């Protein structure tokens, strides 16, 4: 079974530039998560999708971050404009809905390490 695919693996940009990350979840997984993990901290949920609908985006800085999940499969996360404090690893994860509002554990992609200089 193919895992969660993310690209790019690494990205270095200057502050005020834009950047986009792509995630392809495991086939059939309805739930997709984007996390930001700053060095030394645990993953912080930015946005959660159920199919192509947003379940939670309460911690997404909406003035600069945006995300979409077209057709309920692939997802992109964009930062525009980037700030120095956005330097982090961006993790995408997906889980399978097994019915009754329950799902499996989340499976993670390899992440994108973003450095803003």
């Amino acid at each position, binding site marked *: 079974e193919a895992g969660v695919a993310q690209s790019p693996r690494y990205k270095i940009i200057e502050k005020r530039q834009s950047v986009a990350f792509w995630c392809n979840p495991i086939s059939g997984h309805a*739930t997709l*998560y984007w*996390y930001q993990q700053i060095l030394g*901290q*645990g*993953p*912080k*949920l930015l946005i*959660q999708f*159920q199919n192509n609908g947003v*379940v*939670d985006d309460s911690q997404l800085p909406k003035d600069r971050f945006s995300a979409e999940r077209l057709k309920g499969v692939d997802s992109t996360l964009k930062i525009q404009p980037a700030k120095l404090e956005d330097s982090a*690893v961006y*993790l995408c*994860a997906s*889980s399978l*809905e097994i019915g009754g*509002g*329950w*799902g499996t*554990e*989340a*499976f*993670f*992609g*390899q*992440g994108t*390490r973003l450095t803003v200089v």
Partner: protein
Amino acid sequence: EDKVVQSPLSLVVHEGDTVTLNCSYEVTNFRSLLWYKQEKKAPTFLFMLTSSGIEKKSGRLSSILDKKELFSILNITATQTGDSAIYLCAVLKVGNEKLTFGTGTRLTIIP
């Protein structure tokens, strides 16, 4: 606001020692608690605990959940250098499947 607190933040032990990692939580609509191991970037799944008092075991790793006291422990016996990693605890909510992580425990095993 949902809270997941792990302790200790960092732990250094010698190979062969046994370690216990702690995770406490305050979450509404709790469904399950999950443990992950993070060596480089991608966390890998270890355990999902839904019922109190039932130990889950995989080789030298084991974990148990106490839903009354709102905590879980992860035990690693006969530690090896390959166990060096960040161990993350997360809680999953009923209904919306929101997954909230703690800060992690960085475990270092000295040969």
